[in-house]
């Protein structure tokens, strides 16, 4: 903001300065060209293609594969009348709220708070363990948890004596995938919060404790307000990451049993690649994009309210 203010109003009209820098800037852009072309080709290209496909009956086999027709909003009106799609949206919201907003966010903050002012060794060991889960590829993490939760898995063999062994991914599929995602993703929140907490001047908290503020009171009135921006940024990023989670759920339950854990990305995959209905699948991807945008808008709103 400061930068915008220092520029005199006249500068916007006078284009002379810009022209003088022009060739230099263009020359600087040349080395960027390959990267830009690659991005356009492999990132923007598929995105544009999938937006277009959402309005066609493009499929992987059958008549729609050779001769896709533009069908307007038909995919979207079909979605509105598709109870399985709404079911998947509900599950997606449960998954995002359960594993990201509540699970990863709270647990990450908790670990970051507990690690403050601890011995360096404790900090290193705990961080290593938590981040270890995060650096693991998604598919490996998913297989670990499949091995843990399946009927012949570790969980059941440890608690065999208690007699409640069962197929956890069958009896509690959503709980299983949420737990796995919390386990894997907490590290990100923890790191964001650790960084934010280290920026808090210790004098503020000392002053509060001299004033007789209890631990809870200091957390609520001093610490949390000071890191509120990090909280919002973190919430937004993990929400968007979690919205798109596919591998984890696909490996653990493949959306089952039935469609009990079929979140929108899973349902989208099923429609596009099991029933070859690419058009319908990409239309759903577009809606998922809107859901993500909606979440972002809400968070951005908080940021702007906060800044006023």
């Amino acid at each position, binding site marked *: 903001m400061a930068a915008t203010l220092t520029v005199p109003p006249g500068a916007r009209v006078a284009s002379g300065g810009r022209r003088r820098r022009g060739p230099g800037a263009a020359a600087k852009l040349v080395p960027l060209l390959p990267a830009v072309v690659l991005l356009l080709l492999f990132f923007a290209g598929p*995105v544009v293609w999938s937006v277009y496909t959402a309005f066609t009956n493009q499929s*992987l086999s059958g008549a729609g594969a050779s001769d896709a027709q533009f069908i307007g909003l038909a995919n979207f009106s079909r979605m509105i009348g598709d109870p399985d799609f709404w079911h998947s949206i509900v599950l997606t919201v449960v998954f995002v709220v359960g594993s990201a907003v509540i699970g990863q966010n709270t647990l990450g903050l908790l670990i970051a708070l507990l690690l403050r002012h601890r011995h360096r060794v404790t900090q290193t060991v705990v961080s290593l363990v938590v981040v270890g889960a995060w650096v693991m590829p998604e598919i490996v993490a998913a297989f670990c948890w499949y091995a843990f939760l399946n009927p012949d898995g570790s969980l059941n063999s440890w608690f065999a004596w208690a007699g409640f062994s069962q197929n956890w991914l069958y009896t509690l599929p959503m709980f299983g995938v949420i737990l796995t995602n919390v386990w894997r993703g907490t590290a990100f929140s923890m790191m964001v919060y650790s960084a934010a907490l280290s920026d808090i001047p210790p004098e503020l908290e000392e002053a509060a404790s001299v004033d007789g503020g209890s631990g809870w009171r200091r957390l609520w009135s001093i610490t949390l307000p000071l890191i509120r921006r990090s909280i919002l940024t973190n919430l937004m990023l993990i929400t968007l990451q979690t919205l798109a989670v596919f591998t984890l759920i696909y490996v653990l339950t493949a959306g089952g049993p039935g469609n009990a854990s079929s979140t929108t990305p899973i349902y989208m995959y099923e429609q596009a690649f099991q*029933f070859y209905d690419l058009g319908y699948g990409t239309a759903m991807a577009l809606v998922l994009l809107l859901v993500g945008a909606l979440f972002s808008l809400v968070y*951005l709103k908080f940021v702007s309210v906060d800044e006023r």
Partner: protein
Amino acid sequence: MISRRTTLAAAALAVTLGALPACSSSSSGSGSSGGASDDAPKTITVAYQKFGAFTQMDSHMTKVKAEYEAAHPGVTVKLNPIQADENDYYTKLNLMNRTPSTAPDVLYEDTFLVNSDIDAGYLAPLDDYTSKWADWSQFTESAQSAGKGADGKIYGIPMGTDTRALYYNKELFAKAGLPTDWQPKTWDDILAAARTIKAKEPDVLPFNIYSGKGAGEGSTMQGLEMLLYGTKNTLYDDASKKWITSSPGLTDSFTFLKTVFDEGLAPKPQDALDPQWGTKLSTELIPSSKVAIALDGSWQTSTWKKDGAKPWADYSKTLGVAAMPTQHGDAPGATSMSGGWLLSVGAKSKNPQAAWDFISTALNKENTLAYDTSASQIAERKDVSSDPAYLESDPFAKTFTDLVQYTHFRPAYSKYPRVSDAIQQTMETVMTGQAPVDQALAQFQKTVTAVVGADAATTA
């Protein structure tokens, strides 16, 4: 602060957009058919499935490649084994087929997707080649029509077929006092035997029938359709070209399913719904005599042969095979379902002649015999099915081959995968007791009608 918000918004956009390409045209596979001109060295690509215990196709193709390249100097065969389960195999193959540069010249194609892939323009007609091929007359009539499109042209040459029947464990039957040359006449006979096993051998799974989404198409075909096609009804009315969404046979089939799951004759739903259940059965439970009766496919024996995933020398002594009876023992007394795979020439192939030559080599008598015996396929060439080497290759070969006379085929239309999914969903509802049969079937009728369109749905 504006910059902060823009950064956030940009980050948000970037992350959400990241979700999109997951669903876009990321074409997998790396096959390419180079060498277009006649004098240049030609390359043809051959795409087929290689997955888990199914390695027989890969060994067969490797062998044929050597044979073919020796006979056709100047042509290179590039094998492209696609490592994927059945569903993903079709998907990957279709993605490859979409682009000329990745479309294979020769492809391993499931019979029930032929019509859909012809509509998509992926397959080339082979009539010009088969009419000049001396071996073609050796194929049975049903085999010749296995790869026939709605336009009457031939789009694929069958490698072999399969049938489905009841495997039963003679040792367990003897212990429970049941006959070891068992042949049930009706569904009730199966139930009676399963109940006896449950009473006498409580540690054994009395009867396995695939059910629900875990086993995928296996549930539809080895499970429900084996029941349904033994009633007086089917899934599709060929005369009116309509899907049968409701029929007494459908109700009876689902009621049978409910009975076996409710009485504990079938596996626990949570086991049956595990996608790994099929593998566990064939490599663990059946060989260790933990299953008394299993409704399964003829190819299962390939798992127990010497080079299979779970070699089991005594399988033919321990197990017996009985035909699946019709519901009340009505004529013809038995029923079965058949699928099977073809070799086809890709429509985008630049060397269709070379591709055809490869197919005719891969499926000549000697090679068909080798493949059908190693992969436990039912031969569809007369000169192979009468060959002593074929009949001796597997003690059950004759039994399963004889079932071809009772067999049925799935309605191979592009809506089938969705109808099949609706069947699996309904099976799951019934087996887990989420809803009574009539309610589940009402939902099934609704779903299928929506899938195929009201004018392509009927009742019987």
